[in-house]
């Protein structure tokens, strides 16, 4: 591939990265959007409905994905990994690895014939591995680009997909390719992972069958989820009682994660409300230390959930074990009475928090919390310690979607000012930007 010149390069195609790219593209800048997964959409596209409006998540995300894909100034690079970032004048040379999809995306129509033909069923990370797809597949129904990708980890190289493909798009000869983009500025929108609970022995270290993470519950609540309904993953039972353990992996010195993850109170309340609709007979209990519904409209949302009958209990969950039928049993220190009680549920959701995504692609100073450092949050909240590189969304610390989107536009404003002031475009071209 040829070397390319861009005004800005956005790393990460989740909601924050997409919004930054759109804001820059709308101003006439040429933007490269680099995503390591085969589709853009990030974490948000896996969610069910979003707080506090309870819009279906697709209604917000998929049009943005579509807008990115069709934007004349945005150049999408999916299934790509950043290899290195080197200063070049006021800008950067970014070396990028294009991973092989084994599918020619200029030919693939996303018809999924290959997927239906593929003999092997594999866990789908889109469904938190509780759902499945095939070794070759379109990653999910609203993926952008809507193109197949082959997973070499599970492929038998049997060639059935190739024979089935009506447009001869399967290309087994693809190799990883490296190319370079010259960019005047970079926006880090690399997102988050859930706090690991595998080290949290008291909570079963991730081994209890019916203790799940919140993103799994998002998939159960989504219409495209693995079961098409809410079932517990241990044995397919429709749960009659569900507990949420707040601050599971946040504000927890034993895990070295002392900060608040900001989103867990609201997503737990939201999921409780949605469960109330999906399973009207279910009892839902939220165990918490502090309810932090601080955003616009959030406190009212919390009060609505209380009025709906969601049970809020102030207490610390000391441990979780399971009985012979794999029902989780919580041991709770009740803050309001001092009692220690044991309570059995059908299903438990650990309200895990946010840690930085595990792919540090660009060398940048980090804060003590592991997120990208922002040296002057009260004067330049999107500026990192490396000139020309800006940060947005959860790459800069826990943040909900609303705050991520605002921060994404702010990062775009910072980047565009930087490009104007330092960029390598000729003055004439800069004028032409607004012509």
């Amino acid at each position, binding site marked *: 591939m040829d070397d390319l010149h861009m005004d800005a390069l956005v790393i990460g195609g989740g909601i924050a990265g997409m919004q930054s790219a759109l804001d820059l593209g709308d101003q006439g800048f040429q933007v490269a959007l680099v995503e390591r997964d085969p589709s853009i959409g990030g974490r948000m596209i896996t969610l069910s409905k979003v707080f506090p409006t309870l819009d279906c998540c697709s209604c917000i995300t998929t049009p943005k994905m*579509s807008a990115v894909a069709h934007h004349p100034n945005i150049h999408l690079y999916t299934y790509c990994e950043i290899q290195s970032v080197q200063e070049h004048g006021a800008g950067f040379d970014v070396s990028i690895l294009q991973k092989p999809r084994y599918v020619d995306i200029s030919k693939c129509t996303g018809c999924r014939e290959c997927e239906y033909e593929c003999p092997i069923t594999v866990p789908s990370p889109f469904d938190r591995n509780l759902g499945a797809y095939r070794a070759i597949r379109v990653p999910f129904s*609203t993926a952008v680009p809507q193109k197949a990708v082959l997973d070499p980890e599970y492929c038998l190289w049997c060639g059935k997909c190739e024979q089935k493909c009506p447009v001869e798009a399967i290309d087994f000869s693809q190799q990883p390719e490296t190319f370079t983009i010259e960019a005047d500025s970079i926006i880090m929108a690399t997102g988050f992972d859930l706090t690991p609970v595998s080290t949290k022995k008291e909570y079963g270290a991730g081994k209890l069958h019916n203790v799940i993470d919140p993103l799994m519950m998002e998939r159960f609540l989504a219409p*495209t989820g693995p079961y098409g309904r809410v079932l517990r993953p241990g044995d397919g039972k429709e749960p009659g009682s569900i507990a949420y353990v707040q601050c599971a992996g946040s504000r927890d010195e034993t895990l070295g994660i002392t900060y608040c993850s900001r989103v867990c109170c609201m997503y737990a309340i939201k999921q409780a409300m949605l469960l109330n609709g999906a399973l009207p007979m279910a009892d839902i209990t939220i165990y918490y230390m502090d309810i932090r519904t601080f955003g*616009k409209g959030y406190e009212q949302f919390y009060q609505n959930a209380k009025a709906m009958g969601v049970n809020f209990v102030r207490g610390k969950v000391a441990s979780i074990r399971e009985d012979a039928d794999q029902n989780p049993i919580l041991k709770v220190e009740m803050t309001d009475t001092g009692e220690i009680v044991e309570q059995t549920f059908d299903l438990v959701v650990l309200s895990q928090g946010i840690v930085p995504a595990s792919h540090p692609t660009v060398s940048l100073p980090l804060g003590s919390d592991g997120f990208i450092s922002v040296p002057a949050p*009260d004067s330049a909240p999107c500026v990192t310690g490396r000139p020309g590189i800006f940060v947005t969304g959860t790459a800069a610390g826990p943040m909900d979607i609303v705050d991520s989107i605002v921060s994404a536009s*702010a990062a775009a*404003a910072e980047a565009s000012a930087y490009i104007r002031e330092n960029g390598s475009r000729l003055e004439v071209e800069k004028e032409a930007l*607004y012509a």
Partner: protein
Amino acid sequence: MPENQQPRIGVYICHCGGNISGAVQCESVAKALKGLPNVTITRTDESMCSDAGQSLIEKDIQELGINRVVVGACAPMLHEQTFRGAVTRAGLNPFLYHHVGLREQDSWVHGHDKTAATDKALRLMSAGVAKARLLQPLDPIRLGAEKHALVIGGGVAGLRAALDIARQGLRVTLIEKSPFLGGRMAQLETVFPTEEEARALLHDLIQKVTAHPNVTIFMGAEVMGVSGYVGNFTIQVKQHSRGVSDDNAEALMSACTQEVPDPFNYGLTKRKVIYRPYEGCYSSTPAVDWDHYDGRPFDVNGWPIELKDEPKSFELNVGAVVVATGFDPYTPPQGEYGFGELPQVVTLPQLIRHLALSKDGKSLQWNGRAVRDVALIHCVGSRQVDGVHQPQEDGQVNNYCSRVCCTASLHMTADLHKRYPELNIYDLHQDIRTYGRGHEEYYRHALEDGVRFLRYNGEEVPEVSPAPQGDSHPVLVKVKDMLTYGEEIEIPVDLVVLAVGFMPRDLHGLDKMLKISRGNDRFLLEVHPKLRPVETAVKGVILAGSAQGPMNIQESLSAASAAAAKVASLLGRGKVELPPFVAAVDVEKCNGTGACVEACVYEGAIALQTFNENGEEVKRAVITPANCVGCGACVAVCPNNAVNVQGWTLAQYEAMVEAIGMDLPAMTEVTA
């Protein structure tokens, strides 16, 4: 031109991820619509607005020759533009598209009755199809846009918005109502979580703004009127006199004897009516407080000098307006937690000013005595409960969380502990909401510093009362503490600090002038918290900072920069497009009655002009599209039906009404 051919209508119904399909039998509706005249294809999809959904439409336009498109989905406000875009990409005029709201207008409100919801969906969709048959291609109104934005408010959000707009190469005018820049942030000492000096950060920002060649600033100025539309707003501004100049300021200030409570210190101190709010303020030239100046002349070296406010009025032409009008700290009504009755009860902002004014000493002094015990009460004016709290003037309680006060309170306890390690601090809260990056540390430090936390339930708020005569402390705070399992605890204290929340501001009509609305919480309202989080429903009017809701400094800065990004996208190209839904006159039918001109309330939108018709002078109505909002007042009064709103014509309405009222096959028959 496909649009001039016989209508070939494509009809698409969105499941909206269960939002619509949960109440409406989408497939049945699609099947029923298939039988309507001119309907070439009907389809349903899990998510029409997704790329795959949009591609379906594009493909049908190209392959099936669809030349009118109807989508039934969420409210048009959300995704009408999305689908117009898809239709355009496929080569069709965007106005050959009609959007039917099946979610907000149907499935969400009739979820309990699926048969009725399905029947209504069919009627709404039939009406959409009926209108689509009569759709004509239209062109948006393209106008030049001023590459110039107005920012209202000179606090941290307004300053940041102005700087970022200027940095995008656009001109900015910033107006600030008070004679000085800086807003609420100037009243702070240090900021969390970095512990930097608030005014140092602020002045760094002010310096950048004032030094930028694209920025013009008017202080002591306010908006008196707004007209126009995105790209071309005309703003009437009134600027008050400063009253003094650098030459005579010092002499006048020393001659000035009239003093008023100083709002900068929340009334803890007094200042003269010629004043600088604080040392190092911008502008450094003092100003006259016209609201309080009694008008009496000053005696300067024996000369009586009378100062007069001679406001200047002028107009600004701007393409966009950023509203950064900020907030007010909540002022408790007389008696709430003893406020205004007991001298030992202060608000957190007052305490910040008091500490700034206090010399460092061994102990904190208040009301003439050393403070040993202090109680800090959270959620004052926030998270209020109907029936427990006294409502605001409009009858509502502040049921929102003010977001900033928890960390601000613990930031204060850290400062108090540092300065006065002997002080006993009691923190009375419902939940501690130190959510931000670096905020939880304040909570941890407070615990380490020995701050005693007590937790009350929102319905059982603490009580503050004077202590009985002879008691060791002047005030008693009573609280039912949930951390000690509901024990009733009495705390004798010397000082009570109320962590007051954010109040939406009275904008003295500015919101009405700009035609922007407020939400249930009475803060200014965005279009949608995720799709368009800093934009208002009025195109070109954008929000920045705490006018929109409680925000800390960092959040205000982000919102302000986001606002700047939107302004740059809007005005950067120097032109804007407005929707073509404006009045149009059929000159064949018009006979110049002038009824339309009388009915029109928008200046310059419609006028009678004289034409020469076969040698005869006749009057005909003429529309100026840029000034017309498409309200339809002219349409209603025209005796000859000569005026129509483009895209919403009388004929289209009639067709829709007829379709809605039509006898439809019962949905059960269709399903069968």
